[in-house]
């Protein structure tokens, strides 16, 4: 009843977005159509239709409170964890229907890694932070654990810093190192999608740069969706950009497309103003 009403309104809004849909959505790795998210009665994300191609980096930009994080959380079904949160619309990861109530969310979350805004390694040792998810997903042999943990720590450039104190608490590390532990923790399960929720926003520029380089190095291997406030960063690393905006408390997708196009010839006045504002 209420759903219908809102979706009615949404059609008029989404006319902007349909025009900018990626032309070939058949090869899309993640594909959302008319995705809505409610927290209780409050609509947080409105009618998002968006596709992300396999192996590319997609940046989601926009002001605070425009549903960027909500969008990410739909992709690994973290929305399940939020009380009174409802999701409607269509969302697919390859051919897996993410809206189905019967999918194995644990298996899904193994395929889709996530890193949060604030570095949040578990208050355990570095080793345990990485070993816990591995053990959970069936890696029991110590040799294999050791080898996978070393590989992933080398990958995030942390191995030399922590190899002698794997048994020490991850909370004793610096903020940038903690965030790299989190990244390693997400990567250690060899996911096919990586969701990054403003991974650099609470870090100093140096650590931020290291994380950024790391993300770029993953291009092609994983599909990455990164939420960021930092337009310059989006421009540097992303293959495609989606601009979200908040209207009456609900986030919606203004425009999406290849990075070049969004920055050089934005179609929508909001996008243009947003990019201008950040240029000036």
């Amino acid at each position, binding site marked *: 009843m209420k759903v219908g009403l809102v979706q009615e309104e949404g059609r008029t809004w989404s006319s902007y977005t349909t025009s900018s849909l990626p032309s070939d959505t058949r090869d899309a790795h993640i594909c959302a159509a008319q995705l809505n998210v409610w927290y209780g009665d409050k609509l947080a994300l409105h009618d998002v239709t968006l596709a992300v191609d396999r192996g590319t980096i997609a940046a989601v930009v926009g002001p605070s409170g425009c549903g960027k994080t909500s969008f990410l959380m739909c992709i690994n079904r973290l929305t399940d964890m939020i009380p009174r949160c409802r999701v409607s619309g269509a969302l697919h990861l390859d051919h897996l229907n993410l809206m189905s*109530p019967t999918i194995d969310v644990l298996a899904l979350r193994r395929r889709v890694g996530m890193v949060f805004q604030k570095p949040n390694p578990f208050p355990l040792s570095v080793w345990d932070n990485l070993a816990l998810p591995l053990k959970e997903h069936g890696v029991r042999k110590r040799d294999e654990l050791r080898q996978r943990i070393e590989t992933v720590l080398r990958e995030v450039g942390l191995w030399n810093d922590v190899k002698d104190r794997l048994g020490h608490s991850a909370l004793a590390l610096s903020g940038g190192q903690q965030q790299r532990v989190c990244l390693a923790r997400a990567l250690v399960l060899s996911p096919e999608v990586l969701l990054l929720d403003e991974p650099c926003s609470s870090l100093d520029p140096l650590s931020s740069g290291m994380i950024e380089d790391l993300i770029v190095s993953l291009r092609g291997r994983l599909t990455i969706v990164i939420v960021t406030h930092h337009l310059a960063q989006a421009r540097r690393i992303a293959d495609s950009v989606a601009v979200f905006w908040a209207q009456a408390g609900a986030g919606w997708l203004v425009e999406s497309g290849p990075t070049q196009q969004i920055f050089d010839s934005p179609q929508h006045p909001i996008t243009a103003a947003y990019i201008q504002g950040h240029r000036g």
Partner: protein
Amino acid sequence: MFSINTLSPSRSDYLLATVLRLCAVLSGVVLLLVVVFLVQEAFPALRHVGLVRLFTDDSWHPTEGLYNLLPMLWGTMLVTIGAVSLAAPLAILSAMFCQFYAPVSLARWYRRLIELLAGIPSVVYGFWGLVVLVPMIGNLHPPGPSLLAGMVVLAIMILPTIALLMEASLAAVPQEYLHGALALGLRRWTMIRNIVLPAARSGLFASAVLGVGRALGETMAVLMVCGNVVQIPHSVFAPVRTLTANIALEIAYAFGTHRSALFASGILLLLIVLGIVVVADAVKPRWTYGE
């Protein structure tokens, strides 16, 4: 749409959920039983004697069929009020001391002392009251076992608990307020009076209310020092009997309606505690839980 609980696919999760739920249900049943049994046991008294007579009979003489709980209710209330009004100011001052006046190391020692004292059993406080305080009061104004003795012993007993809770609520005042005040060059007491105490008001009050609950429910200490005479006291030197002491004294030999009336007084205590919790809940600061 879908809820968290239907989604965990792995078998151990189902097992976990089941076992945990079982625990929860069992706890619920046990605690429900407490209320059910009290009511069931109190029911004969409520039927044969009736609610009104529990407060209007001539006196408490269960053997003669007189069941007036009022003197005991007065005893409980007076002892409690006295104890809290003695303990609360000292507790606030203690809390202020730890937070604002004491050097850090001294505050830590003082806190440790208070914590240890919070753990001393009430029967020990009662014993101390009996051998030290009661004779002193007896010298001052016979007989000795009295309302005053009960108030003082209870005050000492609940003081550590209230002081710890109050210190927690003072500590919960956001540091920014204090830094703001210090940046304005306010003096210590000016800052405490104008910023800290108002900000911590509800927490302080809730702590005192919890102290009331603790004092009200205490049995052994008052049993040992209050004299246990069933009467509405005319001075602080008169002996009194509280609801809790009454139960402890008589339950061993009570039967029939008498026993049932004691259960009714148990329910009365439960209702008073209920009222206190409601009050404490209403004034409790909102930072305890919630995200």
